[in-house]
């Protein structure tokens, strides 16, 4: 084991010293006791750590995918890992530093908002490996993982374009942020490629971070899109997705899930799900442990980081023609024959609709 | 006069008791023994002994701050006595809160009614004694009981009318009904006539006599000696926290009671020299208020008058005939149309907040009739209240800052000159008695040395000693050549203070008389709208 730069640490749940020492301390003196422990606690084993963004761990979206990956690692190896759900912006740097000081390795953070903080923190802890998802930070101890979401959203767009009977499809995003615009742009391009007649209705759930967790408003927007003749609605709104998919099922129209495979939520109504395998990233990072490498990984359709979900729950919805079209588009993108426009490159979307 | 020292109980010749009273052998309906209560260093009640026989009306008089309110608050469970005991019908009771007082058969009618304005009479009456989760059966039962009570005591109140639609006198009857509904045997009324017109007061006294004849015991707290003489059987005088004497009403007279109350000889007669008239300071022409839907106030329908230096112009009238609005317009915080000139200069009538300030600058001061809601900030200390409206004056600091010591010395000056008690400039206005609150306002407004002084109801709810004092100051101001406009519903006050009297009715001036050439009868006809 390498030696780490570690301060005296507060004991943790798996601290081997914990049982013996705290058993000797009467309960009522717990306060004094743990202050003492702070001084005498030994170094701990390097544990991997994951930091979830303000949206929280169980966001039914990529943070939850990250948790799934971490848990899979835990179940397979029996190891423990540290985790924290941020409550405030100031905790971003705090959590990074505290985990790094404590010797956690690697430290995985889920979300592009960590980029600026990580740029400052990473050089201070050269022995710690950091993994950032959805953004790029150039540092010798940081591995950056970004996804070309527009490629996958193009694919679900193709499916939506073929599935619509009314030539009208919709997308309900969470907040109007660049990432969602990128997804929406790829989606619109895919729809256009498959069905040049089709119209795309765009809505955002809200303007505050509550928008990622507002199923009721998501459902309202879905019903409103259905009223405007949309018969396929793409849900790209984190925890809000639950309400969007539910409303689509109630309205008898099709929906498309995002991030994890949400086909099973309403079999026969969810046309497909756009998969973003954050779980794999976390799992691999934890498995790699301290040997994690630096650099930038671009996850796309070609390397399995993204995909569309086809399983028994949507088998009846996807006919042979649609399947063929998706396969063709997949191959074209994976092989580079089609390059889907990336909104965040120039803040513009060439889609007409 | 039969008076007893404080330490012994009242004993009266049986002949002076009302005919319906219980036989003398029964124990007193209420007996207090050695009640004391202190608030910090202030001894509000000292060893109070009192016994009130059942089926009598007993008056308690005393100046503001004499301890009357503390005493009834102890009886009603708002405060606990530090020492002493309370006996009801000869049994010792512990009244630790108002629920216990109600259970002991004590009912209370406060000076400021405790009614929910947008509830009906019936709903207000059962409020606090609902007895059950469902309202409908309770209301039905209460309606029957209420009818019985109304029949028994000849007290009527429309059960389904909302309180906000009732007159003040009717509201008071609802308070009495509420106490009777809770089976009160002893009814305490705190300054009940302070808000009533003379006719309503007569009506109240008739009700009290009726209650007495049904065997109820009534304790009447008031400072109006005339009422004591008119309605009570026995009367106790309090001064400085002590119970000085309890006497049979028939065996005393107003002058004697007043002297005992104040502790010295009081002159209720006002001697004033003839008015030496100076320049016209205030001219009012064709003053109108247009009332919108949101301001249901009596409109002013064309008021014309002028006021000269060195005179007191009294405005008489039954409350609610536009006098209050007139004062507010003149003082600058109510919008109106027409023309008002102060010392010949036209003033704005927009009613915005700035107007009131410029009136003061022009030498006009105003003692408003609602001292608690308008004239004072109840949460502020005497000090802070002493500069209300004058807080921008140079005397109280330079620039944006206030000079605390200048303000404090001004407040102390008010306290000494107007005998405000207790003499604590840091004490909040709400912790003073009504009379002392009024003195805080009067001290401020007179202390500003205005050329024109508007006065609304200067002695409402104020005790006799303070009345005498305030009246003297008003006369002195007139003699110093100031112009004074006095609005009062007390005809006696207007007649004795004013040089000229105008009567308002329905927003108009019904007539004007020199004070020396008119009397209550003529003014009363004008007040009723009879020309």
């Amino acid at each position, binding site marked *: 084991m390498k030696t780490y730069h570690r301060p005296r640490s*507060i004991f*943790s749940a798996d601290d081997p010293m914990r049982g013996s020492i705290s058993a000797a301390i009467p*309960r*009522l003196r*717990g*306060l*004094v006791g*743990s*202050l003492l422990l*702070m001084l005498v606690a030994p170094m701990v084993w390097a544990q991997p750590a994951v930091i979830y963004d303000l949206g*929280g761990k169980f966001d039914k979206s990529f943070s939850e995918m990250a948790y799934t990956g971490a848990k899979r690692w835990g179940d397979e190896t029996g190891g423990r890992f540290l985790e*924290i759900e941020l*409550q*405030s*912006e*100031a*905790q971003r*740097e*705090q959590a990074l*530093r505290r985990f790094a000081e404590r010797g956690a390795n690697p430290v995985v953070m889920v979300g*592009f*908002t960590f980029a600026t903080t990580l740029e400052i923190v990473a050089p201070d802890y050269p022995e710690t490996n950091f993994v950032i998802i*959805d*953004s790029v930070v150039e540092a010798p101890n940081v591995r950056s993982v970004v996804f070309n979401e527009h490629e996958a959203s193009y694919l679900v767009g193709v499916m939506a374009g073929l599935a619509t009977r009314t030539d009208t499809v919709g997308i309900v995003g969470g*907040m*109007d*942020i*660049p990432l969602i615009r990128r997804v929406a742009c790829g989606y619109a391009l895919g729809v256009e490629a498959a069905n040049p007649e089709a119209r795309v209705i765009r809505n955002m759930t809200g*303007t505050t*971070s509550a928008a990622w967790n507002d199923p009721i408003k998501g459902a309202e927007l879905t019903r409103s899109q259905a009223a405007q003749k949309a018969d396929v609605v793409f849900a790209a709104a984190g925890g809000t997705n639950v309400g969007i998919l539910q409303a689509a099922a109630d309205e008898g129209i099709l929906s498309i899930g995002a991030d994890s495979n949400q086909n099973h939520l309403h079999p026969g109504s969810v046309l497909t799900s756009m998969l973003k395998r954050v779980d794999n990233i976390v799992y691999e990072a934890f498995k790699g442990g301290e040997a994690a490498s630096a650099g930038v990984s671009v996850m796309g359709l070609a390397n399995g980081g993204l995909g569309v979900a086809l399983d028994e729950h949507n088998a009846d919805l996807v006919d042979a023609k649609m399947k063929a079209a998706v396969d063709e588009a997949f191959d074209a993108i994976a092989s580079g024959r089609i390059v889907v426009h990336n909104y*965040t490159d120039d*803040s513009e979307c060439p889609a007409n609709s | 006069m039969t008076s007893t020292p404080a330490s012994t109980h009242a004993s009266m010749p049986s002949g002076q008791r009302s005919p319906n009273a219980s036989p003398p052998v029964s124990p007193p309906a209420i007996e207090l023994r050695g009640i004391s209560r202190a*608030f*910090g*260093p202030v001894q509000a009640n000292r060893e109070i002994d009192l016994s009130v026989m059942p089926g009598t009306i007993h008056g308690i008089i005393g100046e503001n701050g004499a301890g009357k309110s503390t005493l009834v608050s102890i009886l009603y469970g708002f405060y*606990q006595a*530090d*020492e002493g005991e309370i006996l009801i019908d000869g049994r010792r009771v512990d009244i630790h809160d108002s629920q216990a007082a109600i259970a002991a058969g004590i009912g209370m009618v406060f000076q400021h009614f405790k009614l929910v304005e947008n509830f009906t009479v019936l709903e207000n009456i059962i409020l606090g004694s609902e007895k059950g989760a469902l309202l409908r059966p309770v209301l039905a039962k209460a309606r029957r009981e209420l009818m019985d009570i109304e029949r028994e005591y000849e007290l009527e109140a429309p059960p389904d009318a909302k309180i906000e639609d009732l007159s003040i006198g009717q509201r008071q009857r609802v308070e009495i009904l509420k106490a009777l509904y809770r089976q009160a045997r002893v009814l305490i009324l705190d300054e009940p006539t302070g808000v009533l017109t003379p006719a309503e007061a007569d009506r109240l006294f008739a009700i009290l006599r009726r209650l007495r004849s049904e065997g109820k015991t009534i304790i009447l707290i008031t400072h109006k000696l005339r009422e004591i003489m008119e309605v009570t059987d026995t009367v106790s005088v309090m001064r400085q926290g002590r119970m000085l004497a309890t006497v049979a009403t028939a065996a005393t007279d107003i002058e004697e009671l007043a002297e005992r109350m104040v502790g010295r000889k009081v002159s209720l007669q006002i001697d004033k020299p003839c008015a030496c008239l100076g320049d016209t300071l205030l001219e009012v022409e064709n003053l109108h208020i247009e009332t919108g839907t949101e301001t249901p106030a009596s409109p002013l329908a064309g008021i014309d008058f002028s006021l000269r230096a060195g005179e007191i112009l009294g405005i008489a009238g039954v409350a609610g005939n536009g006098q209050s609005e007139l004062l507010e317009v003149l*003082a600058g915080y109510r919008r109106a149309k027409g023309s008002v000139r102060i010392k010949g200069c036209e003033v704005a009538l927009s009613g915005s*907040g700035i*107007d*009131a*300030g*410029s009136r003061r600058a022009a030498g006009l001061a105003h003692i408003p009739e*609602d001292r608690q*809601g*308008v*004239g004072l*900030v*109840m949460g*502020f200390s005497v000090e*802070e209240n002493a500069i*209300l*409206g004058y*807080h*921008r004056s140079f005397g*109280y600091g330079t620039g*944006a800052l*206030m000079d*605390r010591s200048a303000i404090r010395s001004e407040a102390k000056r008010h306290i000494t000159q107007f005998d405000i008690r207790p003499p604590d400039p840091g004490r909040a206005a709400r912790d003073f008695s009504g009379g002392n609150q009024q003195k805080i306002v009067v001290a401020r407004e007179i202390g500003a040395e205005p050329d024109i002084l508007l006065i609304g109801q200067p002695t409402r709810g104020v005790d006799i000693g303070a009345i005498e004092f305030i009246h003297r100051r008003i006369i002195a101001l007139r003699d110093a050549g100031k112009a004074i406009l006095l609005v009062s519903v007390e005809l006696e006050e207007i007649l004795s203070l004013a040089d000229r009297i105008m009567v308002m009715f329905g927003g108009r001036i019904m007539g004007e008389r020199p004070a020396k050439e008119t009397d209550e009868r003529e003014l009363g006809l004008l007040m009723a709208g009879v020309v």
Partner: protein
Amino acid sequence: MQRTMSDRVDIVLIPIISLFLAFSISALIIAGIGEDPFEAAALMVSGALGSAYGWGYTLYYATNFIFVGLAFAVAFHARLFNIGGEGQAMLGALGTALVALHIPWPHWSLALLGCGIGAALFGAFWALIPAWMQARRGSHIVITTIMFNFIAAALLNYLLVNHLRPEGSVAPGSALFPDAVHLPTLHDILSPLGFAFSKSTPANITAFLSVAAAILLWFFLWRTRTGYEIRTFGHSENAARYAGIDPFRITLIAMGLSGALAGLMALNATMGESERLILNPTEGAGFIGIAVALMGRCHPLGIVLASILFGFLYQGGAELALWTSIPRELIVVIQALVILFTGALDNMVRMPIERLLARSKRARSKA
């Protein structure tokens, strides 16, 4: 004598009992989910107050709360319920960012002044619109200020996504502020004086500014004529009109000052901590400010103390989140319990205590 005793009960004893109750119930809940409440308490105390590092965060949060607490209090003294501290602070953050990004500041001190003016003006502007609507049009200020919170969030979102975001960045945030705008942290200030203060904590020079703001606000409310007018207006609008105080003017002054103070929070959060404009620069501090102000009885000293308490809860909560598996929702529950007991349920504690005191006093006087 009686007054000072009851004052002491009011200010010291009752908050302490309320806090004790809140923490007791929190302890029961923590025990209920299988964690050790004593360990948790120890973690919170040592993590928030046991080290310079802990204080660095506690004071950072407290600084935010002082600004927004004072903001609520000044409006409340005029009996205006300014629920819009959140939105006003957001606009303050926008003002700070615009000033920091667009003017080449030579030194942080000038930048602090410039950004302070920007933050205060933007915050005040955002509060003055509802104030004007209340004073002139009768729109209820509670409703309008709540609505303006949403408008502020939407405005910030729009600007960050469309105008302030650096080209190519996915995150809805502005560019980092230039180095010259970097504010000295407590570490930078205190280490030359011989105090070792944690290096990486966000507490900065604005902590002193917030305390100065509290003192100035006290002076303004109780020592100036305008402060007197604000308090008069708050106690009784009728008395204020009688005294020649213009309701329109007071509403605008009180709200403008309130918005400016809320905006100044951005000096700490945006200029001091994130050093760029982010999507949600206030993180609900505007609402915590209401709780802080009510708990501190709208007195500047009370607000400073209550802010430190809430700073402790935030930083202590972060330590719990880091080192235990107590879910963050439960940490919010603990914070909510404190608000509930010290704010909403005040009378529940007050009345029995006062009765008890009255009874013991009577017993003593009898004996």
